[in-house]
C-alpha cells in the first residue's frame, strides 16, 4: 500500500501576533507543521506498523524542510518538496499542483489534515478528490483498514458518523484521530538518511491563475468593552469577579 501524506508548514498558532500597521502577522513567527497534518502522518505510520508493504511519502508545497524532517523522524519513508511557482496560490491552484504530483505515483491513500491553522480553508482535500476522481471523507476521527476497505468515524454536526469506503481515497483528519508521536533521537538520526526529493510542479500557468484573492489581515472589532484583570494576585482577581457576579445577581441560589 502506498500512502501520501500532505503537510503544510504554518506560523506557530501559539506565537502568532498581529502587526496592525502591516496588516499582517509579525514577521519571523516560528514555523511549525500544521497540527492536523501531523495527525495524518501519525495515522499513516500506524498503518505501516500494522501492515506489511506500506510505503509512506510526505509531500509539501514550498519550503518546509523542518516539517518534512519531522514526519521522516516519525517514521515516514521519504519526502517530496514541491517547488511553489508563486507566492499567491489560492487553494484551487494548490490542489491542482498537489494533484499533478499525486498522479505521478499510484497512491492507495491520500491523508491530510482537515484544515490549516493559518488560511484554514479546508478546501484542498475535497478539491483533490474532485480533481483526482477519488472519494473524500473529511473530519476523520477513527480509521480502520482491512483488505482495501476503510471504516472511518467522522465528527459531524449531529454526532459521530461511521462510513465505509474503498481505497484509493482522500481522507482529511482531525486531531482526535490520534496523538502524534514525538520523534525519538533514533528517529531524528534516521531521518537524515531518508531521501528528500525536490520536484517542479507540472501544471500549465493558466491553471494556476487564482480564482480568489485575499486582502490584508485585520483584527476583529472589539465588540465588548469588558473589565480586564491583569497582573493581580489570584485572590484579588477573584474578589473583583465575585463583586461583578454579585452586582449581576448571579450568586443567588
Amino acid at each position, binding site marked *: 500500500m502506498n500512502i501520501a501524506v500532505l503537510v503544510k508548514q504554518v506560523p506557530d498558532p501559539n506565537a502568532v501576533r498581529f502587526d496592525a500597521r502591516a496588516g499582517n502577522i509579525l514577521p519571523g513567527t516560528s514555523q511549525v507543521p500544521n497540527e492536523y497534518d501531523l495527525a495524518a502522518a501519525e495515522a499513516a505510520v500506524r498503518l505501516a506498523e500494522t501492515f506489511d508493504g506500506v510505503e509512506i511519502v510526505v509531500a509539501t508545497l514550498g519550503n518546509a524542510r523542518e516539517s518534512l524532517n519531522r514526519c521522516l523522524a516519525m517514521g515516514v519513508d521519504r519526502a517530496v518538496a514541491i517547488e511553489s511557482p508563486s507566492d499567491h496560490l489560492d487553494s484551487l491552484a494548490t490542489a491542482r499542483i498537489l494533484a499533478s504530483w499525486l498522479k505521478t505515483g499510484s497512491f492507495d491513500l491520500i491523508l491530510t489534515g482537515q484544515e490549516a491553522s493559518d488560511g*484554514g480553508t479546508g478546501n484542498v482535500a475535497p478539491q483533490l478528490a474532485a480533481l483526482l476522481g477519488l472519494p473524500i471523507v473529511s473530519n476523520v476521527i477513527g480509521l480502520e483498514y482491512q483488505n482495501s476497505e476503510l471504516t472511518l468515524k467522522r465528527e459531524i454536526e449531529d454526532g459521530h458518523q461511521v462510513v465505509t469506503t474503498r481505497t484509493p481515497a482522500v481522507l482529511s483528519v482531525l486531531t482526535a484521530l490520534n496523538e502524534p508521536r514525538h520523534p525519538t533521537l533514533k528517529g531524528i538520526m534516521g531521518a537524515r538518511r531518508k531521501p528528500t526529493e525536490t520536484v517542479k510542479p507540472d501544471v500549465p500557468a493558466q491553471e494556476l491563475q487564482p480564482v480568489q484573492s485575499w486582502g490584508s489581515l485585520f483584527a476583529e472589532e472589539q465588540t465588548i468593552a469588558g*473589565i480586564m484583570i491583569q497582573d493581580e494576585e489570584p485572590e484579588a482577581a477573584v474578589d473583583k469577579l465575585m463583586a461583578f457576579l454579585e452586582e449581576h445577581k448571579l450568586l443567588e441560589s
Partner: protein
Amino acid sequence: MSNNVLIFTERGEDGDVRASTAELFGVGGSLADELGGSLVAAIFGGETQAPVAHVAELGADRILTANDPALAEITVDGYSRALDAAIDAADPAIVLLSGTTAGRDLAAYAAAKRGAAHLVDAVHVSLEGDDVVVRRPVFQGKLQTEARARRDQIVFITVRSGSYSPLERQANRTVDAETLPVEINPDDLRVKVVELLESKAGSANLEAADVVVIGGRGLGEAQNFELAAKLAEAFDGAVGATRAVSDLGWRPHSDQVGQTGRTIAPKLYIGVGVSGAVQHTVGMRGSELVVAINRDPDAPIFKLADFGIVGDLFEVVPILTERVRQARSQ
C-alpha cells in the same frame, strides 16, 4: 453574467431546514435583489413537504427538489450530482451553503469540478462591482481577512453558522416545488454511511442551564477537566467543552459547544482555559454575560468577555469555586 442566487438547503435530523441554512435566506435574498435575479432553493431527499413550506416562508422565489434513494443521506458523491442538476436548472451567479461539514465538502468539491472559487467561512457577504467579497476569520479566529472572487463565473460561498439572523417566516407564502430529474446509480456512492453514533440529543442540560462553565484546551489534560466541572457544580450549572477539547478526546462530542456541537445562551458563561477560536464561539455568542479566565492576554475570548482574568486558571479557579460555593450557601 447570470444573476440568480441558489441556496443548498441542508436538512437536519428532523428533515426540516437546518437552522444554519435558514440563516442564509436573508442574505441570499438581498444578494439576489442587488443582482436583479431570483432566490432559488434546492432541497434534496424524500419527505420534502416541511422544508419546501419552510423555504417558501423564508422568501424563496423558486424551489427545486430532487429525490432518489441515493439522496437519503448526505454524501459528496450523491449530493454533488443533485447539486449539478440544480445549478443547471437555476443558472446561479452565487451558490450559498451553510458552513457545515457537509456544506464545506460539497462546495469545495463542486467548485473544483468547475474550476470555480469556493469562499469559505464567510461571516459577511457583499457585492463590490464585479466581485463577491466575503469577510472571514483566519488564524483560528484571531484575525480576519476579506476574500474576493470575480462573478464572471459561478462562485460558491459557505457561510459560518450564526453570522446572520434568521428571517421572520412569512406565514402562508407558498411556492410550487419543481422536481429535478436526478437519477443516481447506487454504485456511484463510493462512501457509504453506516450509522450515526452518540447523537447530541439526550446528554447534559447545557442548553437549559443558567450558568455554563466551558473547559478549554488550557486545562492541559483530561483529568484537569474536574476543575471546570467543580466550578459548574458550585453554580448548579452545566459543564461543556470546546471543539479542541472534544477533538482531543478529553470529553465526549455530546458536550461540545460550537460549530459542530451545541449552541448555548446561558445567563452566565465562564470560559476556563478557552482561547475563543471561532469553532467554539459560534456556539456561545448568545450568552448574556461572558467571563473568561486564561493565561494568554491575546486570547480572542477576551474580546467577547464582559469580565476577563488574565492569569493561571489552576490558581484562580479553585479559589473562585470555593468562594462561589460559600456565597451561594449563605
